[in-house]
């Protein structure tokens, strides 16, 4: 794999890092990081003195901001803790090299134990640690500076300050392209790895959940709670009760009118039935709706032809009434003619009186009997007719309810079919979207892997530069 390929990956994934690599070389700055009180002030002061004494301003020490090299100052009185690791982690962001120094070794006799423990802790917990901590006796360095001469030179060497400054100079002066390139490649690799993790995590869970929900909806019954059927059953009960109540009230009204005028019973019944039918029709239409959706159904109750009333004369009761009326009239006439027996020749008048009384009484009894019989016949006829009419009304109402049930079932089935069809369309669309999404995701993961493979391949060394080794991502 050629370097342009690596450059291309760096430019696409980490344009800022790529720009840094191809821009001006960074300033030779060293950022000093420490938990306050670690002796960093004295150390930096001595480093500055030594740097000045050895000539040159090749290293600049700063406390804030980014720098290619970080000097992490640790102190020998205790092991590295979480606090020091946090400081190191914050300061090492974007740095190419971290150099650690252990101060206070002249005050702490057991500093070697601390040094070993710090190395182990940093190796375990700090990703940017290269395994080296430079022990420095700052007080000895200051004394060496005061002594001067050979003794001072020896003491300075023993203090470790010279080693530390040389290490910092080497870190700052290291081939920028090599170190920086290694750091940027590592950072870019981390970016790609994180992107792959994000892509793997995005498995379309939201779409799958939506699909599951839609499938469950499509599998639901048309009338899950049976609400439509319940409503129709309730309507059936209420309508039959309404028919019964209407027929009862109509019967009461018609019987009252027929009692007053039995001969007009057909006429009165016809009018009352018309009103009854209209009322029941209105109630049914209001409750069940129009019936135009069902062929053959009518919104009004069909009128039935009333059966004719039986004849009012010629019955055995009528003839018996005539005989009884004549007998009773004869008796009454004889009773009325009794006063004439006391008169002379009164017997001549008794016969006509008796006859007249008998005829009159018979006529009145027959008339009364006929009227009562007509009323009874009319009442019976009305009752029979209303019974038939109620049966017709019940049948008509039940027919309308059956029609309404069929209509409701057809409507629910049609709506359910439309909803299921719509849901299936949506599920199909989601399946397609999922396939496309997963395809794109896999393609992007594959592209990321290709870029990672490009970065993982060893870079050919340039003449005069050390070989760049693949740095592993910071975990």
């Amino acid at each position: 794999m050629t370097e342009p390929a690596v450059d291309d990956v760096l430019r696409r994934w980490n344009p800022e890092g790529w720009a840094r690599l191809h821009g001006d070389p960074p300033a030779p700055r060293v950022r000093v990081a420490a938990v306050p009180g670690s002796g960093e002030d004295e150390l930096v002061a001595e480093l500055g003195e030594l740097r000045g004494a050895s000539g040159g301003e090749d290293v600049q020490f700063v406390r804030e901001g980014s720098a290619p090299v970080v000097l992490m100052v640790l102190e020998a009185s205790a092991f590295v803790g979480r606090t020091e690791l946090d400081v190191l982690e914050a300061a090492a962001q974007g740095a190419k090299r971290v150099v650690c120094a252990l101060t206070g070794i002249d005050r702490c006799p057991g500093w070697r134990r601390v040094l070993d423990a710090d190395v182990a802790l940093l190796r375990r917990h700090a990703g940017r640690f290269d395994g080296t901590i430079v022990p420095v006796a700052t007080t000895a360095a200051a004394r060496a500076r005061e002594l001067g001469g050979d003794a001072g030179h020896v003491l300075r060497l023993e203090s470790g300050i010279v080693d530390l400054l040389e290490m910092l100079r080497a870190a700052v002066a290291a081939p920028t392209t090599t170190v920086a390139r290694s750091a940027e490649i590592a950072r870019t690799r981390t970016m790609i790895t994180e992107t792959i993790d994000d892509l793997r995590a995005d498995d379309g869970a939201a779409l799958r959940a939506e699909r599951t929900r839609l499938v469950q909806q499509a599998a639901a019954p048309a009338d899950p709670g049976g609400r439509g059927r319940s409503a129709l059953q309730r309507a059936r009960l209420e309508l039959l009760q309404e028919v019964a109540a209407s027929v009862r009230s109509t019967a009461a009204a018609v019987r009252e009118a027929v009692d007053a005028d039995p001969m007009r019973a057909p006429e009165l019944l016809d009018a009352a039935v018309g009103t009854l039918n209209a009322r029941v029709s209105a109630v049914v239409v209001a409750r069940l709706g129009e019936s135009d959706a069902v062929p053959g159904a009518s919104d009004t109750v069909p009128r039935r032809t009333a059966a004719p009333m039986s004849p009012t004369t010629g019955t055995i009761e009528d003839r018996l009434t005539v005989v009884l009326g004549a007998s009773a009239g004869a008796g009454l006439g004889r009773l009325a003619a009794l006063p004439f027996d006391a008169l002379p020749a009164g017997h001549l008048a008794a016969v006509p009186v008796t006859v007249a009384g008998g005829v009159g009484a018979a006529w009145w009894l027959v008339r009364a009997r006929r009227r009562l019989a007509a009323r009874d016949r009319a009442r019976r006829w009305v009752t029979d007719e209303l019974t038939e009419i109620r049966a017709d009304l019940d049948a008509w109402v039940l027919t309308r309810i059956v029609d309404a049930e069929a209509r409701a079932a057809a409507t629910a089935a049609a709506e359910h079919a439309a909803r299921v069809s719509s849901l299936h369309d949506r599920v199909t669309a989601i399946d397609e979207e999922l396939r496309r999404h997963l395809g794109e995701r896999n393609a992007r993961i594959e592209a990321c892997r290709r870029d990672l493979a490009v970065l993982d391949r060893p870079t050919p060394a340039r003449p005069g530069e050390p070989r760049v080794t693949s740095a592993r991502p910071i975990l």
Partner: protein
Amino acid sequence: MFLMGNSDDAWRELAHRVERLDAEAGRALHAALRTRDRPPTVQIVERAGSGAETLAVPEAPEEYTVEHLETDVPGRADPIVDGDVVILVTAVRRPPHAIHPADRALIDRVEAGRVIVVLTGTDPADDAAIGAVAERLRTPVLLFSDTDALASAIAARLHRARRRRDDVLATTVAGLAATPPARDAIEDALDTLAPGRAP
């Protein structure tokens, strides 16, 4: 709230009497007594590697248990610091008033009256450094080698802890739910054993 004299026997007698009158209240009183009578704890806390394991723990008039705890250890949560006496062992820093954040957090967590700070890595004659640390932490600071001062400080805090436990015992017993006869016995005893308790 003060206890009068050596009242341990009186408390135990009260516990037995209450137990005869109300078994449950008696058990609660015995438990409160056991809590008060458990040995006090002296916790020696340090950032790992500070050398606290070499601290000479002095003897005190009463027995106590010693626990060594480490704070700010990478990959581990800080331990619970709830001893009757807490000795923080830390090294003097450069400059001395630059208190390590982990030490500062510990001092802020623990009740001031229980803490003793023991300073390592400093010259006994360096009063300025000791003063700077004491001023920053607002707590007594002792030298690592000053075992006499440490013994006195521990004894004083243990005595304070004992009084604190007595107060807690009196408060606990005063709040015990008990039958009327047991309650009367408790109230009579509290009038004698803890006359200054709040009503």
